[in-house]
């Protein structure tokens, strides 16, 4: 797309560009952490319904596992999957390999070390008091260095592209810069430089930027890459792509304080965050329109093409999340729903319903290419999709409703226990929804294992004639 000036003869072959083994490793690491994270979610979920079978064991403290739950998702699942996807997309799009293969492998191991150390540190009670940044303070510098290396490794091929670059790369360049800056800001400023209310403002920026400037641009960047390839047609409107990117880049970083409305943070800053949040909802709508414009005329692919179904379901959830957000960000709604399960529902909807769905869609598309083997079972792929989509839909609606009831209970000055009691049925339902999501991922893991086995059998069958004499 970008390097269309290159003559066919000079286009490097795929095997020179993409280190497939590494992509595969990243995906497997991501899935492993996804399972760890889900187990943490279950532990906390069972604690909430007062049936924690593992109560009273220090290393299984539900509070610690709740932090493992969110950190394993952010740094273990999402980040690993993105790194794998970047290793596929960036070289293919720029027609140049990453800076260094050795560096890529080094980053892989450093990053797994960072995530494991984070989990161990949190389980030993060493967490840092910053939401999403619970990584113990002594790991932060390593993670920071890792992010710098990631940026250098991927920027090397990108800077050598001539002329205007494709939408995907806009998002990727920005994400590489932002992720580095966001991590530095969030983990060091409130720890070492400011305290109190100002630290709260930075903390809000950090939580928000992690979603908005790390996960979101990488997510949309890969959508702009995979959707046109899968549909075999260009993105509907280049103008809307521009609006979407620049709107996001300008308005997204300005919203951090909307996580701390009605705190002692000055009110004019809170208003600013609310207004820019609503602005970004409009921007998001243009992006969604652009993608549905692209799908137009090819709607049936939604049912037949599995990755496309994952992607567009994620986009529908994205729209729902943003709709929810444009309500909840208003001060009126905040009075009721802040601190409640509404927010937790929102978090699951965006983290699982949108970004994880996209990544799982990419994995569904790439694993057969990495393993050179079709999926063992299309049926299991379908189960994976429907259990995930159904599970998250139930979980998010359940928690959203729960949040409303909790908010009314508190506002009505009921005894605190009342809000806990009325939440019980919702918390039980959440666990069942979680079970569905978990079951979906089990189908995926089993399917993947079978596919891998089949690929191995096939390869040894190919190798057999040559080796046949020796047997």
């Amino acid at each position, binding site marked *: 797309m970008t390097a269309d000036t290159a003559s066919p003869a000079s286009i490097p072959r795929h095997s020179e560009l993409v280190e497939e083994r590494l992509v595969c490793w990243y995906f497997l690491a991501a899935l492993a952490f996804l399972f760890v994270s889900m187990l943490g979610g279950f532990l906390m979920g069972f604690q909430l319904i007062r049936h924690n079978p593992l109560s009273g064991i220090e290393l299984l403290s539900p509070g610690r596992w709740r932090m493992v739950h969110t950190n394993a998702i952010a740094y273990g699942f999402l980040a690993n999957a993105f790194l794998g996807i970047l290793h596929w997309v960036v070289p293919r799009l720029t027609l140049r390999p990453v800076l260094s293969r050795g560096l890529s492998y080094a980053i892989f191991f450093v990053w797994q070390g960072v995530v494991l150390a984070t989990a161990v540190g949190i389980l030993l009670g060493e967490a840092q008091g910053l939401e999403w940044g619970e990584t113990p303070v002594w790991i932060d510098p390593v993670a920071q260095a890792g992010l710098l290396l990631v940026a250098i490794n991927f920027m090397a091929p990108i800077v050598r592209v001539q002329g205007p670059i494709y939408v995907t790369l806009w998002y990727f360049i920005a994400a590489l810069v932002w992720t580095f800056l966001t991590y530095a800001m969030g983990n060091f400023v409130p720890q070492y430089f400011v305290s109190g209310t100002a630290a709260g*403002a930075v903390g809000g920026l950090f939580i928000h930027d992690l979603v908005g400037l790390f996960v979101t641009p990488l997510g949309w960047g890969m959508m702009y890459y995979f959707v046109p390839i899968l549909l075999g047609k260009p993105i509907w409107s280049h103008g809307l792509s521009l609006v979407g990117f620049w709107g996001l880049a300008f308005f997204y970083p300005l919203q951090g304080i909307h996580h701390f409305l009605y705190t002692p943070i000055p009110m004019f800053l809170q208003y600013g965050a609310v207004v820019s949040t609503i602005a970004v909802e409009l921007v998001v709508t243009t992006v969604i329109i652009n993608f549905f414009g692209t799908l137009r005329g090819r709607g049936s692919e939604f049912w037949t093409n599995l990755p496309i179904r994952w992607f567009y379901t994620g986009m529908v959830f994205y729209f729902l999340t943003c709709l929810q957000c444009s309500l909840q960000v208003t001060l009126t709604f905040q009075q009721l729903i802040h601190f409640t399960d509404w927010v937790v529902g929102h978090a699951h909807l965006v983290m699982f319903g949108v970004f994880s769905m996209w990544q799982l869609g990419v994995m569904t598309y790439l694993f057969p290419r990495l393993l050179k083997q079709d999926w063992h079972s299309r049926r299991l792929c379908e189960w994976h999709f429907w259990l995930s989509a159904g599970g998250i839909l139930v979980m998010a609606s359940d928690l959203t409703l729960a949040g409303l009831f909790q908010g009314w209970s508190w506002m009505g000055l009921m005894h605190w226990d009342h809000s806990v009691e009325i939440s019980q049925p919702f918390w039980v339902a959440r666990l069942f929804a979680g079970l569905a999501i978990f079951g979906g991922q089990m189908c995926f893991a089993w399917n993947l294992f079978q596919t891998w086995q089949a690929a191995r059998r096939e390869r040894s069958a190919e190798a057999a004639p040559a080796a046949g004499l020796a047997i």
Partner: protein
Amino acid sequence: MFETKSGIFFVAGLAFFAFAFLSNALVPALMYRDVPEQTAEQVVNGNVLFQLEDLAQRYPEAFRTAWGDAPVEEAAAAEWYVKTGAEALREGRKIYVGEGCWHCHSQFVRPVSNESRRWGPVSESPEYQNELQRPVMFGTRRVGPDLSREGGRRSNDWHAVHFFRPTDLSPGSPMPEYPWLFDGAADRPNRRGLALLVYVQWLGSWLDSYPYYETYLPSDLKDVELPAAAAQ
């Protein structure tokens, strides 16, 4: 600019980020630069000292194992208590963070939703200008109630029993048990348990309206007979 590498790198990547950081993080930091940040020693107030002495009396052995004995001489004792209090606050905060208490309890009272009637005065910035709010413990989720005005609301032994097994005091509580903060029984908190008690009792102790204070007066009755129901 809109589709070039440098435009995206410098304008979207660096400039927009910097603009957001300046307007959303630097502005509040500058606004509060004149409110000095207190150290843990400075926030050990009379109420915290009272709780410390209470702990020393209720759990003498545990207290001695954790922090040793207070000097006999009065001035030295006062200094010792402040130092010990600060140490306990730092350690208590670390446990509060490490156990993820802040993911179930907030530490700010909002001016809406009747919160000031439930918990006391609405939170203000100067309350957070201290070492123990670095990073700040606002919190984002309330499974349990806000704790920013918790100090003095309950007695130390209430908290101890509650941390040991919350359901003993609050049947149906989803709050986890923390037996590792104790040496086997609710009346034997270990050093970590004591530190967490001090931290929780510190919350809100700086306010004029320090609420619902349980006065600890040694009873002059010897061997009080409890009614059968309460003794269970």
